[in-house]
């Protein structure tokens, strides 16, 4: 048998039917659902009198529209947002899928809840009507976002009509240096490959720096595979993965655990397997980075300066000019001189407990800069509860942060958490597009520790100076 990549193995294990032209019906093991992209899909089922094929493999949770203020039990003010959340309440009940309503302590961002509850397991196929489904690739699961018609297709058939992508390897040999977490790896890779570098590929991340990461760090890396244009990102499961999964509510137990483990241990890329593209970055060379523009590929080390548009080639010259103007920056300006109005810590990229610990390490016993608006939005109710138990919440509140309830919040500003015109934010989320965090808002993507540092100093700050 010819050697296979991890992607090849997971793909092959899920083909339920293959047509002559190579179009496959890929079986879907887990379908995650949130309130924004699902209402029409459920409506479609209703109109055609269809049922959810496998309600037991379908997990729904509202996250995008939910308020994160402490008084949210009193309901959602915006009528359209409220209706979308209520529609999910109703659909989940009517179609009998697993559901975590706003009132449930386990509610949170769909990509945080899935792994936390043990729904996401190695070797699975996982889809969601959301591009950051890539997150689940951290478990060695083939996970990607889909559109509303496809959501309905998966609900009705538990399969997806797919053609296979190409294989790409992103290798990070060596060790990371202090002050450089997973977020910097994933941003640095996008800076290297560009936002279209992964188009048509499924990426497998590997190498010592990836192996050394915790599961949470791996989720941060895979989360942004989509910003690199890839269909999905994958990391081969190992002891770190198994230890994380074990004992979670929906993870297999007893004899099934042993059987699962036996199969999971075969999920790695065989020696000599073919990759269509290979990118290598040395761990030691990765520095704390920050985005200066309005594309996730606009990445520079924090020690750098705002680029000159003329430094770019082709169509990027115009784009850089537009970005710099939108961001209100001056070419040549030191990145560490950029003043920040707001700090947002959260999202499916960096809203997990380790991210919050990293923030607490930086801000413990200190105060955020006067006039700074800073909020921490845990990725799930359970992350919030744990942070309170560990005393992190007290540290945040004493430092001057707002300590919120779980949701997507200012990552996409569909709820009331938004930037105002011209407001500049250091954010731990994944997208810095024009208007992403609010009309004319300005976003710099950073790691949690760098966001914490910016909250203290009021400027983009090299975290290495604070440790």
């Amino acid at each position, binding site marked *: 048998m010819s050697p296979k990549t991890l992607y090849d193995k997971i793909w092959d294990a899920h083909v*339920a039917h293959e047509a002559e032209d190579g179009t496959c019906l890929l079986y879907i093991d887990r379908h995650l659902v949130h309130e924004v992209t699902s*209402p*029409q899909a459920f409506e479609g089922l209703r109109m055609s009198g*269809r049922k959810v094929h496998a309600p037991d493999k379908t997990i729904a949770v509202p996250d995008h529209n939910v308020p994160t203020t402490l008084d949210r039990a009193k309901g959602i003010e915006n009528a359209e947002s409220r209706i979308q959340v209520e529609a999910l309440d109703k659909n989940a009940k009517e179609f009998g899928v697993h559901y975590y309503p706003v009132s449930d302590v386990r509610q949170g961002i769909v990509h945080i809840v899935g792994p936390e509850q043990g729904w996401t397991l190695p070797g699975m196929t996982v889809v969601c009507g959301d591009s950051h489904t890539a997150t689940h690739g951290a478990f060695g699961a083939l996970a990607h976002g889909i559109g509303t018609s496809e959501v309905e*297709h998966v609900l009705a*058939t538990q399969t997806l009509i797919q053609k296979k992508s190409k294989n790409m390897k992103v290798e990070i040999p060596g060790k990371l240096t202090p002050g450089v977490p997973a977020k910097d790896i994933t941003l640095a890779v996008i800076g290297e490959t560009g936002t279209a570098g992964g188009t048509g590929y499924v990426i497998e991340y590997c190498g010592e720096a990836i192996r050394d990461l915790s599961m949470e760090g791996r989720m941060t890396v895979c989360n942004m595979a989509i910003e690199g244009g890839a269909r999905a990102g994958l990391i081969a499961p190992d002891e770190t993965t198994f230890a994380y999964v074990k004992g979670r509510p929906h993870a297999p137990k007893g004899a099934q*655990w042993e059987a*699962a483990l036996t199969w999971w241990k075969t999920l790695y890329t065989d020696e000599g397997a073919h990759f269509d593209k290979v990118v290598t970055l040395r761990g030691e060379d990765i520095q704390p980075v920050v985005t200066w523009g309005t594309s996730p590929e606009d990445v520079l080390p924090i020690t750098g300066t705002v680029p000159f548009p003329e430094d770019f080639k082709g169509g990027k010259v115009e784009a850089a000019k537009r970005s710099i103007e939108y961001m209100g920056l001056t070419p040549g300006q030191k990145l560490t001189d950029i003043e920040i109005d707001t700090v947002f810590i959260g999202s499916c990229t960096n809203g997990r407990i380790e991210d919050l610990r990293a923030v607490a390490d930086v801000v413990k016993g200190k105060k955020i800069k006067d006039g700074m608006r800073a909020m921490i939005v845990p990725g799930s109710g359970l992350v919030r509860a744990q942070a309170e138990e560990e005393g992190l919440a007290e540290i945040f509140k004493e430092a001057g942060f707002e300590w919120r309830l779980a949701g997507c919040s200012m990552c996409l500003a569909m709820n009331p958490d938004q930037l105002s015109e011209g407001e500049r934010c250091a954010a731990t989320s994944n997208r810095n597009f024009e208007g992403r965090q609010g009309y004319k808002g300005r976003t710099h993507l950073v790691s949690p520790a760098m966001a914490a540092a910016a909250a203290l100093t009021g400027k983009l700050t090299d975290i290495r100076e604070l440790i």
Partner: protein
Amino acid sequence: MEKFEKLTGVAAPMPLVNIDTDMIIPKVFLKSIQRTGFGKNLFDEMRYNRDGTEIPDFVLNKPQYRSAQILVAGDNFGCGSSREHAPWAIADFGIKCVVSTSFADIFFNNCFKNGILPIVLPQEQVDLLMKDAEKGENARMTVDLEAQEITTSDGDVVKFDVDAFKKHCLLEGLDDIGQTLQKEAAIETYETKMAQERPWV
């Protein structure tokens, strides 16, 4: 999905070129939770004043075209964003067939997913149909998908091409889901096998 059978109905003329999906359904309507109900907002900004009253000159507001089932349109119909809300709005209004010299690619494919037949014809034939449509209510056209021909109210016959597979799906009323469900046996076989091999899933 409803089967696309022989369609006889009023055709509305919209000679404007580059009608984009923002014109078809403006983005303020995307926060809806429905796939249906967009028909009343089809061409919203062209069709209504800011106060919600109808603009009488707009073709679909004219008495003779209010129940149009066919649209004869200018070049490059459906360009712009990929929103599936555009074909949803067209279908919800009751239009089942759009004729033009060309369509934007994504829109074209989205039509088939929603039971709408988009027909591409050379300019002079679109002109002929446009003239026929302009006659109003009495000018009922017939679109015969099986025979791949349109018959005007004067009895002129225009032949058209359509992808064989897509034609089959429309005729049978098969959407992607419908077709996948035809392979239900394969899915069940897979599930039975997996219940043995990976019971923890």
